[in-house]
């Protein structure tokens, strides 16, 4: 059974939307006998001082909130490279801006975290309808937690999910039968999906090259979905 720790600071509007993704995932995991939600920390209790207690006994830690290149949590730090021993051997989902650029590499390569799924640049959250991006995020994190799957597969779910949203909502934006509100929303979802698709990364100790970058053989298939070599 995979033990999961969920961390959601929920400090502002953006983090509250991300907290809805965390709650949705917690509900899904609670109904699946393969998983146990060890802790589901929300609000101000999510901080560096409480991290060791909140992830104690976990196989994976999933964070939903603000981030910078060298830490999760802003303005209150939740995880830095100094927490490497605390998260050693855990799979980490860092749903935050920037943390895949440096922190993920530090935790994986210096402290033996099992891997880090996140974003290496800004991560754009569509606030007007949390479930649109939430469905992609929860699908990718479920893949990350699945003992029968891999981090690379989780990254593919994440990238393909945003890729699918981009093309689906581009079509909705142009649909003359859609309402004005639907077409405006479709434009916004299209806008935000593309950068998320590009900046998603999986960092694993054995990964060659720079995680998340296209490699020879990557291509789009006839349906427009990315096929990773």
């Amino acid at each position, binding site marked *: 059974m995979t033990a999961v720790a969920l961390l959601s600071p929920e400090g502002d509007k953006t983090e509250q939307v991300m907290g809805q993704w965390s709650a949705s995932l917690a509900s899904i995991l609670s109904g699946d006998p393969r998983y146990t939600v060890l802790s589901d920390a929300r609000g101000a209790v999510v901080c560096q001082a409480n991290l060791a207690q909140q992830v104690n006994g976990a196989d994976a830690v999933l964070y939903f909130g*603000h981030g910078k290149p060298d830490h999760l949590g802003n303005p209150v730090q939740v995880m830095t490279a100094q927490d490497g021993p605390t998260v050693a051997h855990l799979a980490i989902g860092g749903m935050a801006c920037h943390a895949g650029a440096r922190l993920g590499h530090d935790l994986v390569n210096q402290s033996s975290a099992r891997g880090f799924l996140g974003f290496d*640049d*800004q991560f754009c959250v569509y606030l007007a309808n949390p479930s649109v991006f939430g469905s992609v995020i929860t699908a990718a994190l479920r893949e990350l937690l699945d003992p029968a799957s891999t981090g690379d597969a989780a990254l593919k779910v994440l990238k393909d999910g945003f890729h699918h949203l981009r093309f689906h909502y581009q079509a909705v934006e142009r649909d003359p039968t859609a309402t004005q509100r639907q077409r405006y929303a479709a434009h916004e979802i299209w806008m935000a999906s593309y950068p998320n698709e590009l900046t998603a*990364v999986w960092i694993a100790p054995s990964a060659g090259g720079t995680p998340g970058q296209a490699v020879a053989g990557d291509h789009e298939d006839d349906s427009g979905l990315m096929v990773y070599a």
Partner: protein
Amino acid sequence: MAEPPPALPPAALPALAAAIRVWSDNHPDPDAPVFGFPDGSVPLTPRGLAERMSMAAAGHTHPEVDRVLWLYSHAAAAVGIDELIGRLLALSQLRPRGGFLVR
């Protein structure tokens, strides 16, 4: 790290800013938060997007302006800046079904 998209050409910024302004003026919810960035920054509304792109077109630099440039540079990289402007203006022509355009 993912390759950043090409920077928006400065000469195109006024036209893009004007299109975003028209788009924002006709938005069903111009003051509702649309985009959030989990780096600690303030969520962006349609009106906020338009204001920051106008600042960019006027040559101002600021992290909030850079964030908007980053977002629209991705959109322009995906479809080209002319199509992006065309799509913003096309949306602005829409009217609420069964109602009137309210400015």
